[in-house]
């Protein structure tokens, strides 16, 4: 790669790292309990445990890290799906994974479960939808992109119908929680560490195949003749993307647009070399979701907005803007 491009890539990645740090700082400082940067440092140093330090370490830090992990997972899954389906409009949810998770989570809420119960039902729902889509699309022995897409869309709309059914049957008291889950919400997420672990795992699994993904994005047959074991690579990367999506959705509900828009933003900044694009998308997605969540819980404090509403509100204009400049970019 020419050195000018390498310098640019290094610059973009460094800038994204800085932004991630800033976004994390903002997430820790902003909120109804005022915390100064000095108190923050003191809290981390493990000095006297003031109320402020408690709030930051027990509430804001886990939530910010969850946001980063979910955003990173969604952006990574979106970037992988766009390569696999060779479709710039693909996002992590096209294969019905979020629909399945939604059915699981709402069923759990209806049954009166909370916390871990909702999470495990959501994860089971995501995996169920995933296996349904793969099983059906694999019927003729080949995963053609169109067949996979169609099956995913149909399963997703089936899940949508189930979700609507459960919403209309649900008692008044549970509706708000269900709606928040559906729109994507980080306030209910438990410990961030499993999600962060999934993010690290997904990235570590995907990165070794990044150059092969570059070839796959161009043409599957050319990739094959250039030495890529296309069938195996596709299966592996579908698996990574699906797992990443399921992990994100389980922890935060179906947060929209991060998975669709962030890979495109990253592509504009750093190009379509997956070796750079995947880490850039993870950083950008994590940063964006963390920032959006900080806004979601401070904009109309003490009330909270579901963060999915904010990402969609921000994402729609950004994406439309990108689509209108397709001359250079599509």
């Amino acid at each position: 790669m020419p050195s000018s491009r390498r310098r640019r890539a290094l610059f973009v990645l460094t800038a994204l790292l800085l932004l991630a740090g800033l976004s994390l700082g903002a997430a820790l400082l902003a909120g109804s309990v005022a915390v100064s940067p000095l108190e923050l440092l003191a809290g981390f140093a493990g000095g006297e445990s003031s109320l402020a330090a408690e709030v930051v370490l027990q509430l804001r830090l886990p939530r910010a890290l969850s946001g980063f992990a979910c955003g990173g997972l969604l952006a990574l899954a979106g970037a992988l799906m766009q390569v696999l389906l060779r479709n710039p409009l693909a996002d992590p949810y096209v294969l019905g994974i979020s629909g399945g998770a939604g059915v699981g989570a709402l069923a759990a809420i209806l049954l009166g479960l909370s916390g871990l119960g909702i999470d495990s039902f959501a994860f089971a729902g995501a995996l169920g939808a995933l296996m349904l889509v793969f099983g059906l699309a694999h019927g003729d022995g080949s995963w053609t992109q169109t067949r996979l897409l169609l099956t995913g869309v149909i399963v997703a709309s089936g899940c949508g119908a189930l979700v609507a059914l459960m919403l209309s049957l649900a008692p008044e008291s549970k509706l708000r929680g269900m709606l928040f889950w559906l729109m994507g919400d980080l306030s209910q997420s438990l410990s961030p560490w499993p999600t962060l672990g999934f993010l690290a795992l997904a990235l570590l699994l995907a990165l070794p195949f990044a150059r092969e993904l570059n070839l796959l994005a161009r043409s599957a047959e050319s990739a094959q003749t250039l030495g890529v074991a296309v069938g195996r690579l596709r299966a592996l990367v579908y698996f990574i993307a699906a797992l990443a999506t399921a992990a994100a959705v389980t922890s935060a509900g179906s947060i929209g647009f991060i998975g669709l828009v962030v890979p495109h933003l990253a592509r504009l900044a750093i190009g379509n070399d997956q070796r750079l694009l995947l880490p850039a998308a993870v950083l950008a997605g994590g940063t964006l979701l963390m920032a959006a969540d900080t806004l979601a819980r401070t904009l109309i404090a003490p009330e909270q907005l579901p963060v999915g509403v904010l990402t969609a509100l921000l994402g729609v204009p950004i994406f439309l803007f990108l689509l209108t400049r397709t001359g250079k970019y599509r």
Partner: protein
Amino acid sequence: MSALLLARALAVGIGAHEVCTHLDLELAAGETLVILGRNGAGKSTLLATLAGLRPPRAGALRLAGQGYAEHGPKAAARLRAWLGQQRGDPFATTVLETALTGRHPHLGRWQWEGPEDLRIARQALADVGLAGLEERAVQTLSGGERQRLAIATLLTQEAPLMLLDEPLTHLDLNHQIAVLELLARRAASGAGIISVLHDPGLAWRYADRVLLIYGDGDTDLGPADALLTPERLFRLYGHPLVRVAQNGRVAFIPE
């Protein structure tokens, strides 16, 4: 030394259509073979089979003495390159980035393209007349330029066996000859080349041997000069052709 490519009793078909039922083919280094036949006869299917992209119905295929499965995809990619008919990059990419993809089989998993890879890619771009367009977005190229970029990517792969499916698509006359001359030079320096072409005159000029695919499972394989007769070409294309010779070249003119 074993042949670059060896096919024994190869049967290839797609659906109910038989492309060939019993093809014996041996391609040595430095040799050029041209496949001719009408649309839908199965030329691309046969070429894809020879490239290891789809399994034959029967028969054996050896690339430098071993089957594709024994080589594994990456080792096979260092031995044979394939030019398909489909172009289309859904995402933005530059000319140089595209040409560099040809280096993939020569790089380790974590290795980045180095100066030597850059040199090879730039040389290939210059060979097809695309020098100076390195940073252009592929989407802004014309059809002929994209075709030449695909050929440059193929050259960048530096495989001794090159399989080209209609390499002259979208090319104007001067680039058609330039590409065929370029391939002839590669053959002279030891590459084996199999191309699908549509002009029997160009096949006569550049091929050592031709493979005629009649579309009913029947094939003819032999020296270009002996096989490219008006009678055979009539059977091949279903249209009468007149052979015209001038300045040591031959052209076939449709009546």
